């Protein structure tokens, strides 16, 4: 277990380094002296490696660069936008899990019945529906036609104001969670089907365990283990979804900032934010594997 985790952590370090190389390579590709604006004058003709190491050193010291367009450091932009994105993704992921786990379980237990088919069709549609289509339709019907919720995300400056603005926060969170539910429910269904087919379920039934105990103690518990992995691995997807939702609902989170920076060719911001997200995703995937190892006794007690 320790050896496995050590190997896995080493892999994560390599991945994070590769992320920085990819991002830095893209800086160098950018035309119009983008790398000069990032690294200061006089650095345009340095060797790739020397330049990379200088940049990496600055990033490690917490200096992500500076946006001339907004006249702010990337770090300061991150500090104001990160909490908004965390609120949006945190709430919607929690809701998505709370809905998708029972839905997937019901589908697996009632496989190929009317319930399964209806839920499967619904998740199919949510799965095929891009966040901006779903969000636009929700705005149209719930904010424009019937004034139930706000059409824009919360615009309060502080994070407390954002969380307490339930009227404006509902639609963005609903949009992102519906899209995420579709991913999780499909996975939960196949994971639970997998557990249902295992011999320990049959053994539990043979011992006389009731359906409630079989489902709760055996099927649910064992199907949840892969979902932990999925949660860690879908971090990039969730952030990608948040980017679209933030753009649609005008929430000044990380995704919105990246979008605006991309449209306005504000390279320090795009690159700094991409780096942060890439590192977060690599760490998320590492944490998912650690969680998997901690939850699955077969991994936990493995010798290698």
């Amino acid at each position, binding site marked *: 277990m320790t050896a496995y985790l050590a190997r896995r952590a080493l892999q994560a370090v390599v991945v994070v380094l590769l992320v920085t190389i990819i991002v830095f390579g893209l800086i160098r590709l950018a035309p119009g002296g983008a790398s000069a604006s990032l690294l200061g004058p006089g650095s345009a003709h340095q060797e790739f490696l020397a330049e990379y190491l200088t940049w990496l050193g600055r990033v490690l010291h917490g200096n992500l660069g500076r946006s001339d367009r907004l006249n702010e450091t990337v770090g300061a932009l991150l500090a104001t936008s990160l909490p908004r994105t965390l609120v949006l993704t945190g709430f919607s992921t929690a809701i998505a899990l709370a809905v998708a786990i029972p839905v997937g379980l019901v589908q697996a237990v009632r496989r190929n019945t009317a319930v399964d088919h209806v839920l499967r069709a619904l998740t199919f549609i949510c*799965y095929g*529906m891009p966040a901006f289509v779903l969000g636009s339709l929700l705005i*149209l019907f719930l904010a424009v036609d019937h004034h139930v919720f706000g059409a824009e995300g919360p615009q309060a400056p502080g994070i407390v104001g954002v969380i307490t603005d339930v009227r404006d926060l509902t639609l963005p969170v609903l949009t992102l969670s519906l899209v995420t539910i579709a991913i999780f429910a499909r996975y939960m269904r196949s994971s639970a089907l997998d557990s249902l087919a295992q011999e320990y379920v049959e053994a539990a039934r043979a011992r006389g365990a009731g359906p409630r105990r079989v489902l709760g103690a055996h099927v649910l518990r064992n199907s949840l283990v892969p979902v932990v992995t999925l949660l860690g691995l*879908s971090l990039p997807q969730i952030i990608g979804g948040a980017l*679209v939702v933030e753009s649609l609902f005008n929430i000044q989170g990380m995704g919105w900032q990246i*979008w605006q920076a*991309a449209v306005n060719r504000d390279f320090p911001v*795009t690159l700094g934010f991409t780096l942060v997200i890439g590192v977060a*995703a690599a760490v998320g*995937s590492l944490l998912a594997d650690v969680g998997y190892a901690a939850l699955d006794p077969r991994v936990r007690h493995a010798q290698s």
Partner: protein
Amino acid sequence: MSQEQAAPGSRGRHAGPVTVGPPSMAAQRAALAGRVRSLLAACRAYPLAAAGALILIAIAAFCFGGPLVYHTDQVHVFLSQANLSPRAGHPLGTDGDGSDELGRLMVGGRVSLEVGAAAGVLAAVLGSMWGAVAGYFGGLVDAAMMRIVDAAIAIPAVVLLLLLISIYRPSTAMLVLVIAGTSWLSTARLVRAEALTLRMREYVQASRVMGSGGLRVILRHIAPNAMSTIAVNVTFQVGNAILILATLGFLNLGVVFPSVDWGDMISAAVQTIYDGYWWQILCPGVAIVVVIVALTMLGDGLRDASSAEDAGNGPDAVAVSVARAAQALPGRR
């Protein structure tokens, strides 16, 4: 989609009865009937895949054949005709420029389908090659190649795309390359897992003992045997590419004016969302969802079909398809 239809037919031609001289009309008709019968049997066995394929054919006919029947002007602006609700003459209403919405759906769909199919197939081919090489050679090559995939997959595809597009402002052809360049990663993981098991099979070992090089083994043995996995993945990649293109269009970073895709249409409609022109959002939105759902149905059906071939038609088939579904997700090692 045309390939889906052509595959059983072409197989039938080779398997037809061996006759000397030109086949008689009756024999030809019998062969044709046999082909149709086997196609119908396949449709009955996998209704989900058949329904998906039928919907896709219908949409392709709508986008490419529709403008021949339903003539609209998608070039000029008619402000007097702007934002009309659905009515006689404009069955789906008009948009902010006064273009007929139904005609625009056809024009936009053409771009969505073309770019989606090209980028999706390219991504699947790229990813398959990468995965097959990594899985077959194993060891250090595998570790290096897969760490690159891990790193690139950690950056959300949309973010990577925004970055690339803000650097290049690409043409439609570049869009295909950029979309494929950011979405081949999941295919690479999938095919690598397949190649890892295939390289242990006896026929691969035998081929190597007989002196085949790595390239030959990959092309002659690994790739053909991973084909069912790859075929399912192509449907996923095409759908994914259509979604990505629409998302870029929505963010105003997709195809360049005067080209238009379904995402652009929604983006334009969102600008006037407070005026309640619901048809401008609903029509392209439904079009996107129908295409993606049809592709997912086709992919799920193909997966069921290929796993049934492997495991026979029984409860095992379900288990195998579940295992494959789990594999298809961004997997752990």
